[in-house]
């Protein structure tokens, strides 16, 4: 409101500091209440506070409440999630345990089955082997007896032919004696 043209019109060609110092010489405080519009400003500020405080207070209060609700909700959900995670982990551990036991059982039974099968096949092999050897022996026997019979038959034929050719009485008697002796005349 006070145009102090003394400073305004001064031709200042100094540096910033100099001009600042020069400019600051005119700084003062105006205590004229009407001219500085203090009363109106006070009213405006009062109105602003009166209405603004309630409005802003409500706004910020509800915002805070919303945030609190959201946080507590999130926290409860986190707790829930943690609980269910723990539960599932427990279940997982149990399942793994079970899986392990199943695997162990399977391994055990597999070993047992293997042994069974091995034993069975061994006895089978043994049986087959013994069967085969028995077969072999009987065949041998059969062949041997056949050969014997053939030899006997051949010998008989030979003997018959020799007998037919002729034996002296001496010889006949000697033969009969021998035979009697062979059959058991000696004892």
């Amino acid at each position: 409101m006070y145009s102090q043209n003394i400073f305004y019109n001064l031709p200042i060609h100094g540096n910033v500091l100099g001009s600042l110092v020069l400019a600051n010489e005119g700084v003062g405080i105006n205590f004229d209440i009407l001219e500085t519009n203090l009363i109106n400003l006070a009213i405006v500020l009062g109105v602003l506070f009166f209405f603004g405080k309630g409005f802003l207070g409500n706004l910020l209060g509800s915002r805070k409440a919303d945030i609190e609700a959201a946080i507590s909700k999130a926290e409860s959900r986190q707790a829930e999630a943690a609980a269910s995670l723990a539960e599932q982990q427990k279940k997982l551990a149990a399942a793994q345990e079970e899986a392990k036991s199943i695997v162990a059982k399977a391994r055990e039974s597999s070993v047992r089955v293997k042994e069974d099968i091995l034993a069975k096949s061994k006895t089978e092999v043994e049986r087959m082997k013994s069967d085969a050897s028995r077969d072999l022996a009987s065949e041998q026997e059969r062949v041997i007896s056949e050969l014997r019979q053939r030899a006997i038959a051949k010998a008989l034929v030979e003997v018959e032919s020799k007998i037919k050719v002729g034996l002296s009485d001496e010889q006949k008697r000697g033969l009969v004696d021998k035979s009697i002796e062979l059959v058991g005349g000696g004892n």
Partner: protein
Amino acid sequence: MTNFFPLPITNVLAELEVGEHLYWHVGNFKIHGQVFLASWVVMGALIVASILATRNVQRVPSGMQNFMEYALEFIRDLAKTQLGEKEYRNWVPFIGTLFLFIFVSNWGGALIPWKLVELPSGELAAPTNDINTTIALALLTSLAYFYAGLSRKGLGYFADYAQPTPIMVPFKIIEDFTKPLSLSFRLFGNILADELVVAVLVFLVPLFIPVPLMLLGLFTSAIQALIFATLAATYIGEAMEEHGEHE
């Protein structure tokens, strides 16, 4: 910065000062000292508020933190509606700074009893009632949207001036000049007019009568801050908008 917008109505209305400035001399420039002083006050208020809000950050915000978070949320929503969900994040600081600075300037100009302090020349008021401030803000907005467009599309940004038809090219070029012009003059005019009206009324009827107008001034200056920030965001969003093949 020279005396860009002198309004010599000093003789018309008693001793009302418009176009009187507290000149500081920096090099060859004459700068408006009272604008700087008021800007520093505004900046100080914003910085102090930010420090108070972030000094002791709680999980459940209360007091200053709650208030500033609310302001930030407001600015973020503003940027989001203008720039879209994908892009708004990078521009929140710029738009938020514009909004907060203009808003606090306007309200500070209307609510702080600046006239208690008497300067050798000129008087303290909202920084936004000086055309230099608003032009600076508007030019920053222009830079911001050119940067947004060029960084997004390269020189193809200028090719988009011919969208949807080449007839648009001169209008688009004119727009680049009218955007900062309208931004700065709108803000400057509103705030200066508002303060002038109140000052004139105070001269004529010192008590009570100016109060409704002061309240109206608070309303319009808040709206002006919102308009400036919204328009800045819109210009930036427009510059980044994809034309042509991507639809």
